[in-house]
C-alpha cells in the first residue's frame, strides 16, 4: 500500500515537474506565434496560468529546499509577458510572504535566532534598499544579464556546496561574543540539546552587504546565499542557519519590497496569484516531502535554474 502511494505520488510529481517545464515552453511557443500574444488573450489568461505555474513552483521549491523567489524571477521573467520590473516586484512579495509564513514556527522552536538574525538583518536590509534602487536605475538588459549570471552561479552553488550539519567552532571571535551570537536549540531527531556559537563574524557580516544588494537588485529571496554564509563561514548549525536565513528574508525583502511598491512595480492582477499559488504549492510540497525523493528534484531544479539563467543571459544580450 505504501509502495502504491509512493508510486502515485511519484507519478503526480513527475506530472507536476513536466507541467513546469512544459508551461514555460508553451508560453514561449505562444510568444513566438504572435508578435504581441497577450493582446489576443483575455486579461485573465496569464494570471490564471501564473496561479497554476506558481502552485507547481511552490511544490518544487519545498522539495528542492530553495526559496520560491529564486525560481520565480528567472522563470517568470523569461517565459511570461510581464516586464522584469513587475516580475521583480512580485518576486519580492512572493519571497516575503513565504518567509513571513515560515517565520513564526522557526522562531518558536528557536531555529531562527534573533541574536544571530538582527545584526545581519540590519546590514542586509539597508543594502537591499540600495540594491533595489540600483536595479531600477540600471537598463533592463544590464539587469537581465546580471540576473542570468547570478542564476547560473546559484545553480553551480547548489550543485557543489556541501553544508555541514554542526560545524566545529572552537572559539568565538570578539565581534560574535559582543553581539551574543550564540544559542541553544532542541534537536528532535536525536533528542539532544545543542549549543552553538559563531566565528568569523566580520567576514560574514561583510558578505551580507553583497547578499543584500543582490536581493534588492534582482528581487530574489537570498536563502541560497544566507545559508552557506551562516553555516559554512560563520559556523551556525545547519538547522539554525536555514531557520535564521528564512527569517532574515522577511526583513531583507521587506525593505526592498517597499522600494518596488513605491516605484509602482506591483501589479495586483499578477502579484496576488503568484503569492497565493506559491503558498498553496508550499503546503502541498511539505506533505509530499515525506514520500518524495528530494535528491532527484534538486538535480532537476539545478537544471531548470541553469536553463533559465542562460535564457535570462541571452535575453539581456538581445539574443534570446
Amino acid at each position, binding site marked *: 500500500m505504501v509502495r502504491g502511494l509512493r508510486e502515485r505520488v511519484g507519478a503526480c510529481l513527475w506530472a507536476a515537474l513536466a507541467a513546469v517545464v512544459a508551461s514555460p515552453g508553451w508560453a514561449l511557443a505562444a510568444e513566438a506565434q504572435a508578435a504581441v500574444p497577450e493582446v489576443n488573450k483575455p486579461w485573465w489568461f496569464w494570471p490564471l496560468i501564473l496561479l497554476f505555474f506558481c502552485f507547481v513552483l511552490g511544490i518544487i521549491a519545498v522539495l528542492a529546499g530553495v526559496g520560491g523567489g529564486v525560481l520565480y524571477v528567472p522563470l517568470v521573467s523569461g517565459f511570461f509577458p510581464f516586464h522584469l520590473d513587475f516580475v521583480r516586484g512580485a518576486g519580492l512579495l512572493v519571497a516575503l510572504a513565504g518567509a513571513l509564513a515560515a517565520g*513564526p514556527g522557526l522562531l518558536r522552536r528557536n531555529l531562527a535566532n534573533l541574536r544571530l538574525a538582527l545584526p545581519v538583518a540590519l546590514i542586509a536590509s539597508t543594502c537591499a534598499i540600495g540594491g533595489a534602487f540600483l536595479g531600477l536605475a540600471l537598463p533592463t538588459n544590464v539587469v537581465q544579464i546580471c540576473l542570468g549570471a547570478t542564476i547560473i552561479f546559484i545553480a553551480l552553488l547548489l550543485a557543489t556546496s556541501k553544508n555541514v550539519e554542526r560545524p566545529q567552532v572552537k572559539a568565538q571571535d570578539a565581534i560574535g561574543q559582543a553581539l551574543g551570537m550564540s544559542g*541553544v536549540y532542541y534537536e528532535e531527531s536525536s533528542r539532544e540539546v545543542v549549543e552553538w556559537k559563531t566565528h568569523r563574524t566580520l567576514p560574514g557580516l561583510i558578505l551580507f552587504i553583497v547578499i543584500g544588494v543582490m536581493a534588492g537588485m534582482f528581487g530574489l529571496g537570498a536563502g541560497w546565499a544566507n545559508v552557506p554564509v551562516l553555516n559554512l563561514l560563520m559556523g551556525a548549525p545547519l538547522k539554525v542557519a536555514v531557520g535564521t536565513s528564512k527569517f532574515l528574508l522577511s526583513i531583507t525583502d521587506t525593505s526592498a519590497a517597499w522600494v518596488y511598491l513605491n516605484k*509602482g512595480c506591483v501589479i495586483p492582477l499578477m502579484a496576488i496569484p503568484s503569492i497565493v499559488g506559491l503558498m498553496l504549492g508550499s503546503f502541498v510540497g511539505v506533505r509530499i516531502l515525506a514520500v518524495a525523493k528530494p535528491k532527484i528534484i534538486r538535480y532537476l531544479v539545478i537544471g531548470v535554474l541553469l536553463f533559465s539563467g542562460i535564457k535570462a543571459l541571452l535575453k539581456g544580450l538581445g539574443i534570446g
Partner: protein
Amino acid sequence: MATRESAKASPEQMLYADLLFYGCWASIFIMVITYAVYVSGLISPHIPLEKLPHLWRLPVKDFLHEANAPHGWGWALLLGKGDYLNFLGIALLGAMTIIGFLTLIPAYVRKKDWLFFIIVVLEVLALLLAASGILGTGGH
C-alpha cells in the same frame, strides 16, 4: 550545561512569532478577498482589466504614464478602486516586520540590552525610510 528549558525561545521572540503568524495570515486573507472583489468587477478598477495585457510588458516608467497610475503612497488615495484595494493586504504584509520590530524595543529596554536596542531602532528607521517613499519615488 544547556538544558531543554534553556533551548526555549525568549519571550520577546515568542511575541514576535505570534505577531507574524496572525499578521501574515490576515494579510493573505485580505489579499484573497480583495482580489475576488477586483476580478469579479464588484468595484470598478482604476486601470481597466482589458488594458493590462497591453501595459504589463512596458517598463514601470512607461506603465505609470500610460495607465495614469500613481507611485509612492498614491495608491492610498485610490483604495475605492478595485485594483488599488488589493494594496491593503500587500501593505499589511510589508508592515508586519516593522510592527514586529517595534514590539522588540520595550523588551530590550527592560533587559538594558542597549546594543540590540540600537540595532532594532536603526532597523525600524531603515524600514520606515524604505516604506515612506522619501528615497526617490517616480519612474526609473
